[in-house]
C-alpha cells in the first residue's frame, strides 16, 4: 500500500482546497450572484413592509414588535437565508442523470463532503456581498439593532449551525431522488412546512400558539429563527449556549439519518445503477 497522509490532515486539505476554489469561482460569476441576491431581497422586504404597515395602523406594535424591530429581524434574515441555501433535490436529479453520483461512489470519500465544502466556500463570498445590502436596507428601514459582543460571537457560530442542519436535512431529501423521480413533491411540502415553522415567514412569536409548540420540536426553528434572535433579540447567555446545543443536537440527528439512509440508498442504487 502506498503511503497515506493522516485522515484529519487530508480532510482539512480537502475543505481548504474546495473552499478556496469556490471563492475564486464565485467572484467570477459576480453578476449572476448580484441578480440572485436582488431577487432574494424582495422576499424579506415584502414581509417587512407588510408587518410594519400593520404595526403602524395598530398603535405602533404587533405583539410587542415595532417596525424597527421588524426591520432588524428581516435584515438579519437576509444573511441567515443565504446560509440556508444548500444543494436541493432538483440538483440531485441532475446529478444522478449525469452520472456524477456514480463518480462519487468510486471515490474513497463520502460525497456529502463535496457538497458541504463547496457550499461553505460559496457562503464566504455571499457573506461579503451581504454587508453592503445590509447597510442599504438599514438606511431605508432603520432597524433597531444593538447586539452585544457575546451575541455577535454566538451569531457567527449559529449561522454555520443553521447551514449544517439544513445541509443534512436536504441531503436526506436529496437521497429520496435515488428512490423516486417524484422527490420534488416531497421537497415542496418540506419547504412549505419550513416556511411556516422556521421563522422564515414571520418571527415565531407571531404564529399561533399551537404552531409555536410544534416548532419547538422540529429542527426548522434552529435554522432561521434562532440565529436571527441571537442577534436581534435579548436572549440570556444561558439560552444562547443552550440554543447552540440544540443546533448541535439537530445536526447530530441529521447526520445519523444521513449515514443510515445513505447505506440503504447506495444499495438500492447499486442494484439498478446508471
Amino acid at each position, binding site marked *: 500500500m502506498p503511503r497515506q497522509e493522516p485522515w484529519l490532515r487530508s480532510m482539512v486539505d480537502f475543505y481548504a482546497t474546495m473552499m478556496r476554489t469556490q471563492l475564486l469561482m464565485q467572484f467570477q*460569476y459576480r*453578476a*449572476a*450572484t448580484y*441578480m*440572485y441576491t*436582488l*431577487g*432574494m*431581497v*424582495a*422576499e424579506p*422586504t*415584502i414581509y417587512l*413592509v*407588510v408587518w410594519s*404597515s*400593520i404595526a403602524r*395602523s*395598530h398603535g405602533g406594535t*404587533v*405583539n410587542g414588535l415595532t417596525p424597527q424591530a421588524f426591520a432588524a429581524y428581516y435584515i438579519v434574515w437576509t444573511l441567515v437565508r443565504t446560509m440556508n441555501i444548500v444543494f436541493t433535490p432538483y440538483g440531485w436529479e441532475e446529478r444522478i442523470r449525469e452520472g456524477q453520483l456514480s463518480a462519487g461512489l468510486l471515490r474513497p470519500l463520502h460525497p456529502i463532503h463535496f457538497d458541504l465544502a463547496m457550499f461553505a466556500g460559496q457562503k464566504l463570498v455571499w457573506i461579503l456581498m451581504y454587508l453592503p445590502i445590509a447597510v442599504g436596507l438599514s438606511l*431605508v428601514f432603520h432597524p433597531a439593532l444593538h447586539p452585544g459582543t457575546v451575541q455577535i460571537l454566538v451569531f457567527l457560530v449559529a449561522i454555520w449551525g443553521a447551514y449544517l442542519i439544513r445541509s443534512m436535512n436536504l441531503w436526506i431529501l436529496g437521497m429520496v431522488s435515488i428512490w423516486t423521480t*417524484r422527490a*420534488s*413533491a416531497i421537497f*415542496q*411540502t418540506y419547504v*412549505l412546512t419550513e*416556511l*411556516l415553522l422556521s421563522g422564515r*415567514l*414571520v418571527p415565531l412569536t*407571531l*404564529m*399561533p400558539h399551537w404552531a409555536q409548540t410544534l416548532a419547538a420540536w422540529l429542527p426548522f426553528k434552529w435554522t432561521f429563527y434562532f440565529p436571527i434572535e441571537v442577534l436581534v433579540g435579548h436572549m440570556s447567555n444561558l439560552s444562547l449556549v443552550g440554543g447552540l446545543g440544540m443546533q448541535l443536537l439537530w445536526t447530530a440527528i441529521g447526520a445519523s439519518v444521513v449515514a443510515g439512509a445513505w447505506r440503504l440508498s447506495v444499495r438500492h442504487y447499486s442494484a439498478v445503477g446508471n
Partner: protein
Amino acid sequence: MRAFGLAWVYLRLGVLNELQYRANFFIAAFQSLLSVALGLVVLALVYSHTTTLNGWTESELLVIVGVQILLGGVIHSTIQPNMQRLVDEVRDGKLDLLLTKPEDAQALVSLREVQIWQAVDVISGAAVVVVGAARIAHGVGVVGAIAFVALLGFGALLLYCFWLILATGSFWVVNMGYLAELFEGIYQTGRWPIGIYPGWLRYSMTYLVPIGFAVTVPAQVLTGRLHWPTVVVALCFGAALTGLTRVFWRVGLRRYSGASA
C-alpha cells in the same frame, strides 16, 4: 393575425407533448394546491393581527392573491418557458436556427414553448378569485366581469413585455442565469396592495416592474376600487411598453445577428 395561428399550432404541440407525462399533472396540481394553501395561511396569519391592510379587507386581499396565482399560472405555462429558452439559446449561440425561419422572430421565441400543466394555477387562482369576490359585499356585474378578464389579459401582456425586455438583455449580458429566481422574488410583491410600499418602491413596482398594473388593477375591478383615470393611464402605459419592447427586441436581434456574422 399570423401570430394567433402560430400560437394555436404550438399550443396543440405542447399539449400533445405533455399528455405523455400524465404524472406531471398530479405534480402540478399538488404544487398549485400548496401554493394556494400557503397564500391562504399567510392571509389568515396577517388578518389574525389586523382587520384591514392599507384599507383592504381579507376578502379583497383574497382576490389579489387569486389574481396573482392566476397570472402566475399564465406566466409559468407560456411566458417563462419561452423566455428561459431564449436566454439559454442566446448563451449557447443556438438562436441562429430560429432566425432562418420565415416567421417573425419575436412571435417564434414567444410562442414555441408551452408547459400546459403549469396552467393548473390558472384554475386554482380563478377559484380563489371567485371565493374572494363572492364574499365582497357588493356584487360584480357582467360588465365588471368582462372588464376583469380584459384587464387580466392586459396584465399578462404587460408581464410578457417585461419578461421579454429582461430576456433581450441577454443579447448584451450573456449570463442571465438567475433570471427566473429574480423574477419570482419580485413577483411575490404582487401579492400585497401596492399602497403599503413606500413611495419609490411603489413607483418601481408600477412602472419599472409592471406588477402593480398587472395584478392590482384587475383586482380593483372586482373590489370596486377602479377609477377610470387609472384605466386610461394603464392602457397608455401598456401601449408604450409594447412599442418599447418591440423596438428593444429588434435592436437586440440586430446586434446578435451582427455579432455572430
